[in-house]
């Protein structure tokens, strides 16, 4: 990706910050040439990734660090990385399966939504070191949309 603009922000892993993170990501994504419902989808996937870091990465410990980095490319693409330094994921394949959840009170739909709304979802994780979820999507350029 040829980066046109980028932002990075870090915050504590408390539930109050989930809405902060998705609102920031949504506001940044508004620079893309995309629709309002695209922005809603971006907010959803960021909410899922950040919630995963809080719940699974940090086991709900509220004062650990989460870093969100978002970039917009000249090709009208968006890349968002959500990084935590928590316990990591042992079996990434299993974690990404629909309705798999190590926590029975949640739906286990987080990765399903991420995969549904983004072109590419990649996870890099190391046990006891942390997890980075990278979310990528390219939106149609104005010229392509007209064609």
């Amino acid at each position: 990706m040829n980066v046109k603009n980028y932002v990075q922000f870090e915050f504590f892993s408390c539930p109050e910050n989930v809405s902060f993170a998705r609102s920031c990501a949504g506001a940044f994504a508004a620079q893309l040439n995309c629709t309002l419902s695209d922005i809603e989808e971006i907010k959803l996937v960021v909410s899922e990734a950040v919630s995963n870091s809080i719940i699974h990465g940090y086991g709900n410990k509220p004062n650990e660090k989460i870093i969100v980095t978002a970039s917009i490319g000249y090709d009208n693409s968006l890349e968002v990385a959500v990084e935590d330094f928590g316990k990591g994921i042992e079996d990434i394949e299993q974690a990404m399966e629909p309705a798999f959840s190590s926590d029975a009170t949640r739906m286990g739909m987080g990765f399903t939504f991420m995969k549904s709304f983004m072109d590419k979802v990649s996870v890099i994780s190391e046990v006891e070191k942390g997890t980075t979820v990278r979310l990528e999507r390219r939106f149609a350029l104005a010229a392509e949309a007209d064609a």
Partner: protein
Amino acid sequence: MNIDCKHIYDTLIIRLVGELDLLVSEKLRDFIDIKITENKSRVLILNLEKVSFVDSSGLGVIIGRYKKISAKKGKMYIAGAQPMVEQILVLSGINKLIPLCRNEQEIMENYREDGI
């Protein structure tokens, strides 16, 4: 998140305003569970007309309340989900378990047809 609650006989109507995510999911779950127990509710109507956002933490609360009320042979309905929220409910398959209705009135009319 604002929660408004109303009982009509054994029906519990929960009207939510705001965003349904990790921050509010636990509070909402406890609130509804207490009301279901207090009211001995057999029907739960979740009004989402003024809910602008739901993620999987929110879906977890919804599906959990469905299981709870179903275990008591009760019914649950969702009223007035906005398009993005509705899309999430459909994608998660919740709509196959809990009927999505336009508004509370439509549910009340269905009741009579169901003979509840």
